[in-house]
């Protein structure tokens, strides 16, 4: 039993959870405002990783002393790539269908996701192969008693925490955040307040995509191997985490992500066969007990 619930396993679970959290944050924002399962979100994550990869090599070639400057631009590139592609996807594929049945945009979302994956995989200079991700920041392992934690894991956890707090403040305290919440709750009413909801939605995609991009960079640093289909599984898991925490709820997404990370870790440590299904099992149990997720707001159906 010791090896199942040891400090090391807790650290392992937190690491897995923080990557899920980073993707889930953007996922839950976008879902909250357009109520669309954005299948392409995991691909924005993947694009962020590739943008970071490319930028790293360009900067390494240009600048002799790497370190800080490179890391900054790599982060910028990953966020820009994720954000801009998310924005473009919204404008080209989702916006024209905004007032059509919601499921038609779901299919375009699937189409966009397939396109991004297959396109990158077919593109000669990218290709389907696994690419070794460089150490943007040198990796240092820190010993805590019998457990080991790497500086990358600490960065992951910190970034997830900072982004969560920042996003919560943005949404709760700023006028822009309130407008975003208004749009997510009632689009017509928001328009009647003079809010340009398309701008609000576009902004949300930009932020959500940028977060996904940053998550791609961090995932690349944590698990130094990237490929065009790398977004599918984490995207799915992050979506589950977002639903688990209560979709549209920012702390909920992070909570859901860490619950999933820890549950998967403990389950795999207990018996590797059940590790794979545990995320789904937890999800089903939670939703059956609390259909709006752990922290989801109860909005009763009114006649």
């Amino acid at each position: 039993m010791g090896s199942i619930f040891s400090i090391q396993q807790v650290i392992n679970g937190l690491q897995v959870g923080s990557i899920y959290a980073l993707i889930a944050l953007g996922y839950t924002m976008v879902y909250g405002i357009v109520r669309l399962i954005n299948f392409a979100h995991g691909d924005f994550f993947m694009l962020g990783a590739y943008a970071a990869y490319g930028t790293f090599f360009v900067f390494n070639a240009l600048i002799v002393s790497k370190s800080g400057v490179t890391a900054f631009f790599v982060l910028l590139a990953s966020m820009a790539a994720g954000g801009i592609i998310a924005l473009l996807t919204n404008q080209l594929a989702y916006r024209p269908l905004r007032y059509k049945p919601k499921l038609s945009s779901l299919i375009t979302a699937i189409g966009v996701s397939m396109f991004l994956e297959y396109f990158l995989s077919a593109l000669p200079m990218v290709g389907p192969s696994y690419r070794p991700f460089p150490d943007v920041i040198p990796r240092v392992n820190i010993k805590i008693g019998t457990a080991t934690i790497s500086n990358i894991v600490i960065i992951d956890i910190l970034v997830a925490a900072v982004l969560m707090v920042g996003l919560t403040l943005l949404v709760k305290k700023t006028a822009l955040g309130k407008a975003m919440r208004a749009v997510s709750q009632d689009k017509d009413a928001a328009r009647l307040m003079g809010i340009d909801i398309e701008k609000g939605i576009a902004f949300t995609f930009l932020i959500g995509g940028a977060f996904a991009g940053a998550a791609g960079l961090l995932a690349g640093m944590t698990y130094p191997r990237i490929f065009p289909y790398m977004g599918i599984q984490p995207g799915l898991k992050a979506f589950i985490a977002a639903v688990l925490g209560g979709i549209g709820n920012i702390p909920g997404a992070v909570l859901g992500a860490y619950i999933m990370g820890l549950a998967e870790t403990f389950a795999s440590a207990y018996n590797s066969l059940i590790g794979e299904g545990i995320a789904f099992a937890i999800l089903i149990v939670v939703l059956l007990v609390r259909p709006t997720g752990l922290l989801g707001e109860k909005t009763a159906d009114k006649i």
Partner: protein
Amino acid sequence: MKKFRLPRLLIVSAVLFVVIQILHSREIMNGYILHIINQSLIYVILAVSLNLINGITGQFSLGHMGFAAVGAYVSGTLTSLVFKINPSSPNAMPLFILAIVAGGLAAAVIGILIGFPSLRLKGDYLAIVTLGFGEIIRTVFNNIDYVGGPRGLLGIPKFSNFPIIFAAAFITLVVVRNLIQSSHGRAMLSIRENELAAELVGIDTTHYKVMAFSIGAFFAGIAGGLLAHLLTLAHPTQYGFIKSVEILIMIYAGGVGSITGSTIAAFALTFLSEGLRIGIRAIADTTGLPIGGEWRMVVYALLLIFIMLFRTEGLMGNKESRIITIEEAD
């Protein structure tokens, strides 16, 4: 009293069946085309049965291939491990059909189980839970060594052929058509349109949702069984959520709630995906561009986006062809 008339669907199906048989036996149509037709027909069963759950009753399910997996594994286990049917023995065919139906029934039982969350959950929440169920089913098969685990269930006899698959697709169409054009179907539609209102006028929504899930799952199980006996194997990775999404694409491209649309889309998308093999090669050969099969899916994805952007309601909208609708006798 309704006058007896040979239904249009039966006539059209019979003609198509005979034409395809003749074309194939005269070798005008090669085995490849026939294989794509077989595959399309299996997709017809999957799409029409998913449409019953998703399009008609409005219960967003993302785990449809999980039902197909149950059908494939149950029927495949029966024919290859339990009955150990020798295809040449005289009672092989009845046993095979028995196995396929058993697979469908097993899937229906699972369908009832999965139908229950739909009583509590709606929309995207239901979608993610059905997706979860589908993935769990897949994981379970992946971990049972008796049915091959990650090696897959191998050595399934090749029983599926064009007449059998055609008959199964025809039966699926007739059953689902008759169902949705009956009072049951109208009850299901009313759940999709407004569940609360349906309840208020006294429709037992629980009953109809579970009914949609179990019947939909039954036919998905049949399709899974037929596929397994066409490929001679069943493998867990064939039934993942990406495959469920492919079926979903078919019903939306065809038009939600239209089984005519699902049927056409199942054929159109299967032939499109195959046609692109030849198309991409032709482009590469004529232009000299260094493009290969890896571009096929890029084009497919783009076409999918364009279909949804420019034909949002799907190919058929929610209309049915006159071939599908039941004629009212004058």
